[in-house]
């Protein structure tokens, strides 16, 4: 399909590969020995420029969108419709005084935002953002992504602990407990994709989904196990990025701002950046694993450049994040933990078994019925058992009486 349209129209190939061609053209000015390194540097520069730019755009869209949901205007003073607000915010955070608390642990306090932003940026290295557009095509790309995600937890703890503030420490402990709980789910829901595609390489996972039956794509979300896995993945991703309704670590009404309460000026901006970059990278991973990465949603749309599909899907994720933030109330800590360990985790484990069943039942319509029925039955039974109303009785306090 792709090859046919590509042969027919070279312009489409150029539009699809414009960034790859641009990189090759720029690198072509250098001697051959330096070309691989220069290509990698250009890729890094592209990532470091594109995603913070997307972050600036997203902040203004988020504030506009939340304003719309809350029946107000949102930012509307800087530039047309307030769209230059991020520039004003950037200048403001750069010129603000950098305050470090007197009793704070200065070195760790300084390192925490740097570690966060550096590790989050590393995750983008393995995401295929278009056809042939992946910085490092690693054999174990998915594992690399999760390894980098695990390292961000420590930076949040470093921030919370080094500030020497009870709210920041409480926020950090909440954040780490929540991230550890949901990371298990995140990993296990991705394992089912690995089981079907048989590879940990993200570009191979996308290539496995870039096929069509008629006009419909072979995305993993369009299978019973894929849909269940995607929903679980989306829940865990929301919790992992500390977004509403899982924003307990920075719950403004109880912890003021959580682990970054003692950060000001540019260090605070780095935390802000790190959180949004984590949102982009986890959305990119969800897109890659379940929504076919850069592949088009219908075969007759394959002429649209692949990177437009990738970034479009990521922005769709971001829109849902903003929508949920404007809609849902915050969970309570015990609800969060019960939900993770008693409902989401068993369901994910069951989904692994269902995925194996799907794999070994072979093609045919019978596996659609069997897998869907098992997942639906488990959802209903576990929902009835675990979420019965008598679980929500009087709250029992363990330490706070």
């Amino acid at each position, binding site marked *: 399909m792709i090859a046919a349209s590509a042969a027919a129209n070279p312009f489409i190939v150029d539009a699809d590969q414009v960034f790859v061609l641009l990189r090759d053209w720029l690198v072509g000015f250098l001697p051959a020995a330096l070309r691989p390194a220069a290509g990698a540097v250009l890729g890094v520069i592209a990532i470091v420029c594109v995603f913070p730019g997307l972050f600036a755009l997203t902040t203004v869209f988020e504030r506009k969108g939340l304003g719309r949901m809350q029946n107000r205007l949102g930012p509307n003073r800087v530039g047309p419709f307030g769209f230059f607000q991020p520039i004003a915010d950037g200048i403001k955070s750069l010129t603000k005084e950098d305050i470090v608390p007197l009793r704070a642990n200065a070195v760790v306090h300084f390192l925490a935002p740097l570690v966060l932003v550096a590790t989050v940026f590393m995750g983008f290295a393995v995401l295929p953002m278009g056809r042939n557009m992946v910085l490092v095509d690693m054999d*174990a790309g998915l594992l690399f992504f999760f*390894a980098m995600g695990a390292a961000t*937890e420590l930076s949040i703890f*470093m921030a919370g602990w080094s500030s020497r503030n009870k709210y920041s420490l409480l926020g950090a402990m909440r954040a780490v407990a929540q991230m550890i709980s949901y990371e298990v789910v995140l990993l296990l829901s991705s394992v089912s994709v690995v089981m079907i595609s048989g590879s*940990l390489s993200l570009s191979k996972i996308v290539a496995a989904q870039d096929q069509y039956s008629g006009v419909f794509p072979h995305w993993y979300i369009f299978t019973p196990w894929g849909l269940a896995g995607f929903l679980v993945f989306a829940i865990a991703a929301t919790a992992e990025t500390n977004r509403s309704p899982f924003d307990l670590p920075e719950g403004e009404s109880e912890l003021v701002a959580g682990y970054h309460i003692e950060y000001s000026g540019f260090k605070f901006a780095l935390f802000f950046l790190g959180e949004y970059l984590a949102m982009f990278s986890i959305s990119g991973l969800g897109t890659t694993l379940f929504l076919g990465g850069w592949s088009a949603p219908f075969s007759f749309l394959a002429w649209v450049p692949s990177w437009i599909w990738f970034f479009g899907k990521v922005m769709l994720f971001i829109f849902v994040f903003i929508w949920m933030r404007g809609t849902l109330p915050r969970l309570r800590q015990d609800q969060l933990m019960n939900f993770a360990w008693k409902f989401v985790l068993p369901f994910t484990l069951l989904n692994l078994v269902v995925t194996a069943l799907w794999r070994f039942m072979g093609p045919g319509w019978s596996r659609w019925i069997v897998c869907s029925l098992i997942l639906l039955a488990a959802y209903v039974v576990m929902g009835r058992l675990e979420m019965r109303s008598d679980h929500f009785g009087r709250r029992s306090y363990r330490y706070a009486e």
Partner: protein
Amino acid sequence: MSAIFYLLAVITLAGGLATVLLKQLVHCALAATVAFAGLALLFLQLDAQFAGFAQILVYIGAVAILIVFAILLTHGSHMPKDGVFSRSWALGLVIAAGVFAILGWAVLAGISAVPRQNAPPSATVRDIGEALVGRYVLPLEIVALLLTAATIGAVVVAMHEKASPR
């Protein structure tokens, strides 16, 4: 031995030394994390992707967090007045040196036992996975059983408190 190896070795050793020499326990935990990261990078430098990423995922993502939690939950982040160094540190040094000597001897003796290969051995993630569920499936299952027992044990320890209502 390239320059990168020596750089990584220095980082790892400095992290390890800082772990035992620093006074503040949380600093020690963070220094241990540096040592873990250095080890992971050493694995990656040897082209062992799976071992390197698993090292980061397990040691930085789980073990370091666990250590930090243990320190905070046991009020260990406050410094004791009479120092944090054990009085039997000399004995510890001897034991550590002994363990290091045995490991070093085993590695050096192993070099001559294994036939010399011309091509560097390659172990892709796929190879490791197939070995784990193929030839080594029994040890894997035994480890799984052990971990399940440990989990149940942890739950039992945690539940003990609830048996006596206040």
